[in-house]
């Protein structure tokens, strides 16, 4: 069980094939901001979200320090064309989503979508070099 004293850690999802799952291929969500990180690298993420549109990777209420990092993945066919969905609940008792970098992915026609209340500039959302 996570406590506030042991929040430093990492959630690493590397080199997996995430296929045809009902919601997101990977879902990362936090309830605090201290010292953890989420890294999704080198995964094939295809055809997820057929029950609910969350995309291949869903990052929600995640204010990780140093960051959430999504790179070198290969996306295609995810519902709503969503490769990565970055959202914020908006509740005052939940973290504000920030510090997300999405780079060097093969998008396969999918996109990165920011939910309402998430600002690329104010929340340090970096999206670059994907095709």
């Amino acid at each position: 069980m996570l406590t506030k004293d042991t929040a430093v850690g990492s959630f690493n999802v590397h080199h997996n094939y995430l296929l045809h799952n009902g919601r997101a291929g990977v879902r990362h969500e936090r309830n605090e901001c201290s010292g953890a990180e989420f890294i999704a690298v080198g995964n094939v993420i295809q055809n997820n979200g057929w029950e609910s549109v969350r995309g291949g990777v869903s990052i929600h209420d995640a204010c990780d320090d140093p960051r959430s990092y999504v790179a070198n993945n290969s996306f295609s066919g995810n519902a709503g064309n969503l490769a990565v969905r970055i959202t914020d609940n908006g509740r005052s008792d939940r973290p504000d989503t920030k510090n997300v970098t999405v780079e060097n992915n093969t998008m396969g026609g999918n996109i990165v979508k920011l939910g309402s209340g998430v600002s690329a500039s104010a929340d340090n959302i970096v999206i670059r070099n994907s095709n």
Partner: protein
Amino acid sequence: MVAAQDPRREVVPVPATTDIANFVNSKSPDSKRQVFQLAANITYRVNALIILRAGDALSGAVPSGTPRMVGPATDPDPTTKLVNGAALESLIGLRGDNAITWLDMSGADYKGQQGTGSAISAGSGNDNTLIQFNRIHDNEIDHNTTESAALGSIGSGVKGIYEYEAGAITCMITLDMASRATCLRRIPL
């Protein structure tokens, strides 16, 4: 980051014919770190949630050859499979500092509670968690988020969470005498 092949872990082979959940759950509470090594080309039916003690790992066989690359990503094509043998809501539960590697996992089923429908439930993975070289597919929910009972739940391949899952819509709910939830007011995220 936690390493898949942590030399501090003792290798414990899991026989192909065993009840995997019973086997792992009976041994994982041991105080030493262990990696439960599954056999190649075997499908294990999971009849209860596999719970890994903090520090333990679950690994399938490493296939021969070089994994296929898909753009910058890797298709690991594991030969060891875990399938849902008992309509389980999740196949594997993490307790922190766990590694899950070289497994094909499918069939986790939404059961109406938060956190169900994920092959790997990482909600209690309180420290470093590594999920690598797996094929995670066809994990599902039976309902969608327009149903109040499904709100706050997920049907992902992998879910990492430090509190609870918020659905696409948050509701103020009421329960009737049969504990059926009704959404009184929806709060869009």
